């Protein structure tokens, strides 16, 4: 998994606000949650008050009128019931808000990534992008599910407890209030101290895991070099430093995390008792009050502890949010202004030059015109620039200089949908999607059964499909494993034929496909010829002998062009390639 390990010292308030604003899109849920929250808090706070009334008004007095007692008991039971019920509903509403928000952020960031210019993917490692879409949004989920919910619930409860205390006895309440600044101080102090320490321990752990995985992969080398002992020693050292780092965390946790709020609470209890005892020596006091205060006191520490523990999640979530926003704000590729349509299928390259890094040219001054219905082939050694040429034609990248014209219109002015519909591709590695066989041919487009069957028949895959358990409705296995490689190619061909593109790009498989598949593809292409412009990237020269024009590419430059016969008669790269393929040694 991809590891990101930068953690700033301060939370970025702008990003936090922006994250929280997402929740405002669900006012209904938020309102309901607020009502339920108040209800449950009220129940929690009123319970001790009822007991206090019972103790002071009845038990201490020693009188038990049946009606009053029954009423009190019923009120108590009802309140607990309602409070528990409201508490459950309240957290369900907040859960729903959290999941809705994450759903929106996830779909936004995914959709944006899917529409980024392709050059974006050249610089960003796949693992990192995946982590943006999954791990970072998961951290944002925790912000809403764990941090926000806990903070809102805790703060409301604590405030309500103090209000109830004030009603019972404001002086005793002030005694309890004394501990709050200390608790808050401990909370932030802990957060400040623990964040870098946890970060340290985590990064040592990821170092351990990195070393482990690297050593497993390179174990042969380690053993061949007789370095087992040295690697073992180094691993042990890292592992021990992880132990030391965790012990530092442990020390901090043990000092400030759980024992500390308990200490403060018990000390407050001592203060409470001192004040109460002192009062009792001067005037009559109510036992129920001290009972209620003891009860309230025990309810404050747990929420404080929870908030303390969740503060670091807040920080991580905001950092994750910032990274996600960077992707969203950089935006996606936009071709909405382009509206030209492709009709006849003419392709022209005019002095096209291209380089991925702006330094090393991959294509230089490429010039050619494929008239509608013509069959062009591009050949060349690995790295000659063939695939790049196709990428430009599909508008994956824009050339640095020169123009690509489709039907005489600049490629940038062609409507996105028209481009996709008119330019069909048969890829080296056929793209198989989950879903049924039929959906793999239609790709979700509206298409009559005749068209689908005709295309499958033309690609000679119809008979095979009919042998499948549910024919065209058979679901594809993961990555299409119920089809052989050759059959997947034919399926991909059927798909392309069904979509009737104006321009067909054929990226021939490097790996040897069986001669049957090859013959089928050949025949299908010959049928399209004259009607559809075909540009084939060929590895096997035997498949393109019938091309109208063959372009020989070497290091990004067209070095030869002509028909198969013309090129064979010339002494040059094409002829050598041809001879090479004739004399393949096994």
């Amino acid at each position: 998994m991809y590891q990101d390990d930068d953690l700033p010292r301060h939370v970025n308030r702008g990003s936090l606000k922006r994250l929280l604003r997402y929740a405002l899109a669900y006012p209904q849920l938020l309102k309901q949650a607020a009502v339920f929250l108040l209800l449950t808090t009220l129940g929690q706070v009123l319970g001790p008050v009822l007991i206090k009334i019972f103790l002071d008004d009845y038990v201490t007095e020693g009188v038990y009128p049946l009606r009053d007692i029954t009423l009190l008991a019923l009120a108590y039971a009802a309140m607990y019931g309602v409070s528990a019920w409201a508490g459950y509903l309240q957290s369900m509403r907040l859960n729903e808000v959290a999941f809705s928000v994450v759903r929106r952020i996830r779909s936004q960031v995914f959709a944006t990534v899917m529409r980024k210019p392709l050059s974006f993917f050249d610089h960003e490692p796949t693992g990192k992008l995946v982590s943006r879409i999954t791990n970072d949004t998961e951290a944002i989920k925790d912000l809403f599910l764990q941090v926000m919910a806990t903070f809102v619930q805790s703060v409301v409860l604590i405030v309500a407890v103090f209000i109830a205390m004030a009603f019972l006895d404001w002086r005793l309440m002030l005694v309890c209030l004394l501990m709050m600044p200390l608790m808050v101080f401990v909370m932030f102090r802990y957060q400040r101290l623990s964040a870098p320490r946890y970060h340290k321990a985590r990064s040592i752990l990821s170092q351990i895991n990195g070393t482990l995985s690297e050593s497993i992969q390179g174990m042969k080398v380690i053993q061949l070099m007789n370095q087992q002992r040295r690697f073992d020693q180094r691993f042990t050292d890292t592992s021990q430093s992880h132990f030391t780092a965790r012990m530092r965390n442990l020390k901090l946790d043990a000092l400030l995390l759980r024992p500390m709020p308990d200490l403060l609470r018990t000390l407050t209890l001592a203060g409470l008792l001192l004040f109460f005892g002192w009062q009792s020596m001067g005037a009559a006091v109510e036992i129920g009050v001290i009972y209620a205060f003891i009860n309230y006191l025990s309810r404050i520490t747990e929420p404080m502890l929870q908030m303390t523990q969740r503060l670091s999640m807040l920080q991580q979530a905001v950092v994750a949010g910032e990274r996600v926003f960077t992707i969203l704000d950089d935006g996606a590729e936009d071709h909405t202004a382009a509206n030209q349509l492709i009709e006849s299928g003419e392709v022209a390259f005019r002095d096209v030059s291209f380089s991925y890094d702006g330094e090393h040219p991959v294509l230089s001054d490429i010039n050619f015109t494929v008239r509608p219905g013509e069959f062009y082939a591009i050949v060349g050694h690995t790295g000659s620039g063939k695939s790049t040429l196709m990428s430009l034609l599909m508008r994956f990248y824009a050339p640095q200089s020169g123009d690509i014209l489709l039907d005489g219109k600049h490629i940038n002015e062609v409507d996105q949908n028209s481009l996709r519909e008119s330019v069909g591709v048969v890829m080296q590695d056929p793209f198989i999607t989950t879903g049924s066989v039929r959906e793999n041919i239609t790709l979700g487009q509206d298409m009559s059964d005749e068209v689908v069957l005709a295309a499958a028949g033309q690609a000679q895959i119809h008979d095979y499909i009919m042998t499948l358990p549910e024919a065209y409705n058979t679901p594809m296995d993961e990555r299409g494993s119920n089809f052989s490689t050759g059959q997947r190619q034919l399926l991909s061909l059927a798909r392309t034929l069904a979509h009737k593109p104006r321009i067909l790009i054929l990226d021939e498989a490097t790996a040897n496909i069986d001669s049957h598949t090859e013959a089928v593809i050949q025949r299908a292409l010959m049928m399209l010829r004259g009607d559809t412009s075909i540009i084939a990237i060929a590895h096997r020269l035997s498949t393109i002998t019938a091309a109208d024009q063959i372009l020989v590419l070497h290091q990004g430059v067209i070095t030869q062009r002509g028909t198969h016969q013309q090129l064979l008669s010339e002494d040059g790269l094409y002829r050598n390639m041809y001879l090479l393929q004739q004399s393949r040694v096994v």
Partner: protein
Amino acid sequence: MNIFLKLGWYFRAEWRRYAVAGLLLVAVDVMELMIPWLVGQLIDDVLAQRLQPESLWRYVLIIAALAVVIYVMRFFWRMYLFSASFQLAELLRQRVFKQLTTMAPAFYNRHRTGDLMARATNDVTAVEMTAGEGVLSGLDGLVTGVLVLFVMLMFINWQLTLVALLPFPFMAWFFYVIGNRLHDGFRDAQERFSDLNDRVQESVSGIRMIRAFGREAREDEVFLSVADRAAEANMRVATTDSLYDPAIFLTVGASFMLSIGMGAWLVTRGEITLGELTSFTMYLGFLIWPMFAYGWLLNLVERGNAAYTRISALLDARSPVEDSGTEQQAPSFDVSWRIGRFCYPGSDNAALANVDLLARQGQTLGIVGATGAGKTSLINLLLRYYDDPACEVGVGGIPVSGYELHALRDLVAVVPQDAFLFTATIAENIALGKPGATLDEIRAVARLAAVEQDILRFPAAYETLVGERGVTLSGGQKQRIAIARALLLDAPILILDDALSAVDVGTERSILAHLREARQGRTTLILCHRLSAVEDADQIAVLSHGELAELGTHRELLARQGWYARMFDYQQLERAVVSGR
């Protein structure tokens, strides 16, 4: 609970830490119980109006002192208990690593890296939790539960206790059920999350095809449905989790109501005091933790047991190749193969058959042949990656199994097909087998491998970091660094296993020339596809389908007009095409 027996060796070894932590835990539990009792006493004094300033101060100061002592003790038991469990985790990790270093390559063919990693990460954590939190919840839960019950029964009122505890079994049962459901839910959520990861991974790596077919909107839909499944699984966990608070709240509420009701009756009858009733309700709050602890403990034990079984299986595994040889020195550096028939474990197809081959000390033997012809199998046998009684492979006339593994590896330096570099500096990578090498030594071999010019062009030259956080090297650069690394060992036998494939022909020629100079009197084996690498070898063996098809010098083999000669012509033509002619 079996896992605690299995971990007995560790508890015995660390008995001091566990004993101190246990004693402190018990002491804390006892002292914690004293506080409610003191509060009850104080309230009774107030009610009886016999509270004096001195006694009030005494109560308050005792409570405050207890609070401080408890705090200190809590700090220490945490330090003792968790340091023991943390150390266990590191110990297991270290043992796993050590074990891995002794395993022969065949072991790694059987175990996927991810699986081995899981044992050293997730499984170790699960065992650590058992030895830390598990011990805590078991011991502390038990002690607290027993003590509280004892105090309630003996010092307050046994009838009241029984009535007040009526709802608690329900809570224990609930914690157990919810704990299990939560655990299953977590696992499910994790699986759904990894589905999500896979899905995104697939989409991002298939971005070109998605664009080519205009499938962005469809991908969005599919993604959203997978993301929704992940969210649903998460939602189930959150829903289950949301049940905790109301359930605790209801149980405790019911218990409070019962105890206050019954308690009031007892107070009126004079069987207990109001102060005792207050202490009693405070004790009730103490019982939540033991209920929770047991549900948790069962969970931890279950997971820890499964994890420890997997770790033990790994630690008990034996390497497929035994280090039983005793020879330290080789009488000469001749390498010989006499192979009847060799199949890889689990396969019936002969990888090698009837191969009788000898490389004399000081000579260079070229081994060529199509992919899968058995070239690397020869090396695998020489390095004892596999042992097979039907194969006699020897160095200096002694079978390789007669050597101590360490000694055998000292005899041979190998440049493998895939040059593996570690995340370290270039200098460290070259000096992998000789960590004490000076920079001059490193530079000398880098020059022999014709890679120094490349290295000097990197930002920090020899100190440049390799890998994800450092520079990315080309295949040819990696290969040449691996060659330099092998040369630094200056071993009597050098093997280049298709180690020049990504290097251009000119560089290959100069490396080979350097080798001839530097390796006089030593044996060199060159395995390759490109015949130019073996043109000057003393002897060339051509393998075909595991058998020795041709043997001779470059000239002799060309004259035979066999596979070698045909391949040579083909590669000549290929070279012309690559250079654009």
